[in-house]
């Protein structure tokens, strides 16, 4: 049987502000950290990226993108004023099918998505702009099931890793998610941005400190509380997925960047090989 591997994992934000950082004159540090992460990932020469995006929401189990090419110009439903996000993404369809098959074997509900005009979420597109700007590397994309718990999300990650290994591919995993999710609900200047609540900031930093010292199990155990206290993006389930993919709960994270996006907390985090 072919034997692929997970080269590295990243936790990155999915809001479009970073893609328009230069134009809008803000969020420069986070955008730079994101670009650096992308450059490091590129150096590792992955055969494929596997992406879990908190902004691709599903309710009938987990959905897997299998349409071979996704191309278009994306207009975000909230932040359309910033501009459009053109995208061209090559989908690793066979891997997507395999990821779904493995998830199904773990009793998770799955659906394959292969539809012209399917609305690709902003997070997936933003992550590819930083990690895969020329679209040269194929991508496997899985949705965030609203009803999945942390254990299921981790299981989904394990299924993803099994599919990657059995496909003989070398993959980089990208968990695209915010941290604390308390937005400013008014217009702000980029220069005015900050984490909207000091307690959210404390929580975010605590989570990042735990990850930085390899206490990832503790992060998972704290996720429910973290989510309840900070309105964390989709319960911060993306982290559990990432841990499932990496299968190495003691690996220390390298926090490349942390800061606010419109009041929310966001970080660029690397789990290197």
């Amino acid at each position, binding site marked *: 049987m072919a034997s692929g591997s997970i080269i590295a994992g990243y936790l990155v934000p999915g809001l479009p502000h970073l893609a328009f950082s230069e134009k809008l004159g803000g969020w420069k540090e986070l955008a730079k950290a994101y670009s650096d992460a992308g450059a490091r990932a590129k150096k590792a020469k992955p055969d494929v990226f596997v992406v879990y995006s908190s902004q691709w929401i599903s309710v009938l189990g987990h959905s897997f993108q299998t349409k071979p090419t996704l191309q278009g110009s994306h*207009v975000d439903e909230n932040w*359309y004023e910033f501009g*459009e996000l053109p995208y061209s993404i090559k989908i690793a369809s066979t891997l997507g099918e395999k990821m779904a098959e493995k998830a199904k074997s773990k009793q998770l509900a799955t659906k394959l998505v292969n*539809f012209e*005009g399917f609305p690709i979420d902003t997070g997936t597109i933003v992550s590819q702009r930083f990690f895969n700007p020329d679209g040269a590397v194929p991508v496997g994309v899985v949705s965030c099931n609203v009803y999945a718990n942390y254990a299921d999300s981790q299981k989904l990650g394990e299924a993803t890793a099994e599919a990657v290994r059995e496909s003989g591919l070398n993959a980089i995993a990208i968990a695209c998610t915010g941290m604390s999710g308390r937005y400013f*609900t008014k217009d702000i200047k980029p220069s005015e941005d900050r984490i909207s609540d000091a307690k959210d900031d404390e929580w975010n930093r605590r989570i990042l400190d735990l990850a930085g010292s390899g206490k990832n199990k503790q992060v998972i155990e704290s996720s429910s509380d973290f989510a309840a206290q900070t309105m964390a993006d989709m319960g911060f389930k993306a982290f559990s997925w990432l841990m499932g993919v990496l299968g190495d709960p003691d690996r220390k994270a390298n926090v490349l960047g942390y800061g606010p996006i*419109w009041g929310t907390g966001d970080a660029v985090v690397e789990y290197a090989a």
Partner: protein
Amino acid sequence: MAGNGTILAGFLAPHPPHLVYGENPERNIPRSKGGWEMLRWAYGNCREKIKALKPDVIVVHSPHWQTIVGHHFLHVPKLKGLSVDPIFPHLFQYRYDMDVDMELADACYEEATAEGLLAKKMNNPNFRVDYGTIVSLHMLNPDWDIPVLGISANNSPYFYSTRVGQDEMIKLGRATARAIQKTGRRAVLAASNTLSHFHFDREPDLPEDMSKEHILTNEQYQWDMRLLALMRGGKTEEIMGILPEFIDKTAAEVKAGSFAWMMAAMEFPKVPAKVHGYWTVIGTGNAVVEWDLAQSAVAAGGR
């Protein structure tokens, strides 16, 4: 005539894409063997009614256009494209083509701002209109021969509290009514939401297999019936009073604000509502309900 506009009627117009799928209109790509007839027939009554009313515009507030910063209004004269439902893409791939009432959009923006709300006009022609807006509008008027105005669901009920959110929607409703009045529009309103919203997280192999369709729990059914009884009795104030509890108990989609917006725009009508139909879609409770303000005005001696 400008300055003499009126709201002719309001409809609770739920948006499960299943209803369009069950109908097999030419605009929708997937084909079905029918299904969810109780709701589709209910919508059929509304279509006739709307044709007879000859409105200038249908205004819809949709929970599936969620905005974080402010209340947004569609503001592109013509919006056209393919809308694929992100949750049920196998059921809904719909070619839409809608004319937006720009003057009313401007007026709504002005009045919402005057009401102290943060308002925005969405003016990107490549914007993908959400499926909630499209399904409600299709089910009310599949000919698309009446201009429309889509309004986003601001996320305030989720960010702050149900009460804060509903208060925002009440302001938005008042603003919408003033805009309609000032622009002289004869308008129909549509609150695009289901009632109880807990649902199955699995789908039958054949989505339109009606032997599998039923309400998820009896508790949410009882809540839906309680709400509908109040609607039929014209007890709007009582409904608004229990709305937060209804939302808590049934995860009702009215939380997104469409219903409160419409009630406020219609000045919390005491006219008995006409329930055209109720049924479930993947376990959620859905009702097609009409408030006929034009007829009640006639009955009251005109206004």
